[in-house]
């Protein structure tokens, strides 16, 4: 296909794929991220297209690498699910004030309704809190166009920018026309010393904060006049302000209404919103999740009405938007619950949980397929907070519980999660060991299984499945000074495995047990990747 054909081509793409296509079309130098539903496919598709993409150990590192790319005058995207931005929040809040030479697009994929997440946070609040401009696409075409607009905005104002997606934008497919937004080619990679702009020590950070507020004021004024917002003329009796996928539901439910569809939702185009609201009898705000737009409007003295509090929870859809507009607050019909997911037959996690259940352990757990250890018939995983929390929470329990209970605490964490944010927990364990000792059980199935089989630093293969440096968990644990480090197959050696956990629990010492057996769904691919890499090495 020549470039001419490509530019006009239509394709049926998911929002994730559309973002990747835009990044590829804009010549993005590097895509970084950590897998997380619903964001994972962005980097995978970017790599398939020929872009350079890397999984980082976690979102904080991914963002820092991307910041380096932008400091070099190039373009970077960094992808994560909504909770990933919590991990990356530290660099985000400071890079907001730093003048960038290249483009830095931070993609956050929120999960209203929590299809596969531990909370329902609305990351539009991050844009406001950090002072980072934010775009919200409503379908795949906008996912494509807004990624390109994000690059323009980032480079024009030398600022990072958030592209805030949601599950229904990431994972819905719709038709994308390519080439609808053209961006200038990326500048050459270069570095000039500019310590005052990039070293955020107080003498530099104070004026940087003032510059940030000036930049945001300039973007706000631009957003009022020329921002990527859409006005749909309609009835003067009802006006609706909306953004993201909610716009699609609104258009379906109220085709007669006037609609102000916001694309750049931080900083808000308040004057545009004000004049829109003044020209309709009733102005409603329809938004999924937190009352972000409505609070912004009300704080600016714009007369709008939001949704009832019940619609703060879960996704919006056509039926729910109809209820909001009709003022219907009767109880919503409940759907018949579906079948819950469960461990695959023969999954090694089944054996690990069987042993922990047999030993009546107290199990602070973590995030991955193995979170299903909290479901029947195991009902064995006792806590889930955030990525990596199993180890810290386990240590806190050990420090607090009476010895008879403390001795039964086992922290359970997966391989990818361990790399993401379990390593610092292990350091804490060595530094502040509980009197009863502690046991960390790493469920190493050789892949990031939950999100769809992504590589991580513990597999020794990169995003493209090619061989690279490998973090060996047992070596790492021993290097930290942990004496009881064991590697065992929980399926082939089940009895020994259970005895091993028991003996570790009986000792007032620190133990790391690595239950190693490849994920059943991934085992064949893993063998194939390894075979290819062997051949390459020969």
């Amino acid at each position, binding site marked *: 296909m020549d470039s001419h054909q490509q530019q006009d081509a239509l394709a*049926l793409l998911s929002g994730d794929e559309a973002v990747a296509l835009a990044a590829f079309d804009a010549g993005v130098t590097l895509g970084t991220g950590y897998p997380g*539903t*619903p964001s994972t496919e962005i980097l995978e598709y970017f790599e398939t297209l020929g872009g350079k993409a890397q999984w980082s150990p976690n979102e904080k590192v991914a963002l820092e690498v991307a910041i380096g790319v932008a400091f070099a005058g190039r373009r970077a995207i960094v992808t994560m699910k909504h909770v990933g931005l919590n991990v990356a929040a530290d660099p985000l809040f400071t890079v907001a004030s730093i003048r960038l030479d290249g483009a830095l697009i931070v993609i956050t994929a929120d999960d209203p309704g929590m*299809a*596969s997440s531990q909370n329902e946070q609305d990351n539009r609040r991050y844009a406001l809190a950090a002072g980072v401009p934010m775009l919200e696409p409503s*379908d795949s075409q906008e996912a494509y166009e807004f990624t390109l607009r994000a690059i323009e905005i980032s480079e024009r104002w030398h600022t990072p920018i958030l592209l805030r997606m949601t*599950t*229904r934008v990431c*994972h*819905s*497919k*719709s*038709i994308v026309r390519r080439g609808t937004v053209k961006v200038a080619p990326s500048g050459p990679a270069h570095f000039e010393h500019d310590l005052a702009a990039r070293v955020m020590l107080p003498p530099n950070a104070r004026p940087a904060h003032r510059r940030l507020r000036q930049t945001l004021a300039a973007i706000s004024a631009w957003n009022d006049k020329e921002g990527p917002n859409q006005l749909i003329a309609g009835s003067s009796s009802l006006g609706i302000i909306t953004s993201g*996928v909610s716009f*699609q*539901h609104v*258009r*379906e439910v109220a*085709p007669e209404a006037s609609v102000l569809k916001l694309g750049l939702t931080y900083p808000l185009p308040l004057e545009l919103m004000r004049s829109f609201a003044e020209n309709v009898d009733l102005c409603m705000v329809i938004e999924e999740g937190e009352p972000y737009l409505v609070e912004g409007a009300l704080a600016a003295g714009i007369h709008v009405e939001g949704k009832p509090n019940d619609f703060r929870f879960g996704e919006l*859809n*056509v*039926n729910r938007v109809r209820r909001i507009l009709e003022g219907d607050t009767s109880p919503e*019909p409940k*759907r*018949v*619950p*579906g*079948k*819950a*997911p*469960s*461990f*695959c037959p023969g999954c090694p996690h089944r054996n690990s949980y069987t042993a922990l259940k047999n030993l009546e352990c107290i199990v602070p757990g973590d995030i991955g*397929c193995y979170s*299903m250890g909290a479901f029947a018939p195991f009902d064995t995983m006792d806590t889930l907070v955030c990525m990596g929390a199993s180890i810290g929470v386990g240590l806190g329990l050990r420090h607090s519980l009476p010895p008879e209970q403390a001795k039964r605490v086992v922290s359970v964490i997966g391989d990818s999660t361990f790399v993401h944010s379990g390593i610092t927990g292990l350091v804490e364990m060595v530094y502040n060991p509980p009197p009863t000792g502690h046991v960390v059980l790493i469920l190493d199935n050789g892949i990031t299984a*939950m*999100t*769809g089989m992504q590589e991580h630093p513990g597999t020794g293969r990169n995003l493209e499945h090619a061989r690279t440096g490998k973090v060996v968990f047992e070596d790492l644990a021993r290097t930290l000074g942990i004496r009881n480090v064991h590697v065992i197959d929980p399926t082939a050696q089940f009895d020994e495995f259970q005895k091993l956990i028991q003996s570790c629990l009986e000792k007032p010492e620190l133990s790391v047990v690595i239950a190693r057996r490849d994920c059943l769904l991934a085992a064949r691919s893993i063998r194939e990747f390894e075979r290819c890499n062997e051949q390459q090495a020969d």
Partner: protein
Amino acid sequence: MNSKPTNVVIAGLGGQGVIKASDILADVAFSSGVDVKKSELHGMSQRGGSVSSDVRFGERVFSPMVPEGEADYLVVIAPDQIEVNQSVLRAGGTLIDPSLIDESRLTTKKSINVALLGVLSKHLSFPVDAWHTALERNLPEKLRDANLESFTLGRNQ
């Protein structure tokens, strides 16, 4: 005013090819030149749990999700998932489920998803060639013949 889109919900359990079937249907609609959107939830649903995928097509489609009670067709691959999804079907809508297929005539049982698409295809106005092309485009070569057979079996049911 735009005419209403056609709404199809395909449902089953993780691993049954729900998403694959909806990809094929969406591809047929797309290549026939109509507006189309498709939506489903990934993630936890992949582990043997309930999965459903919405496909909407027509002159203009807004929301990617089929509204409750507005599906024209509900295609269910696992019989125990009919009850779970029944409420999405509109009054007078069509349920397409495995009872319509003589499973003993399928070359591979796994292709029941495609056989049910064959049944669905009779109700829709897309040409049969568009279905064949989409099947070829969305399935690995070694599975094509068996799936084409299953599709034809469903279509001739």
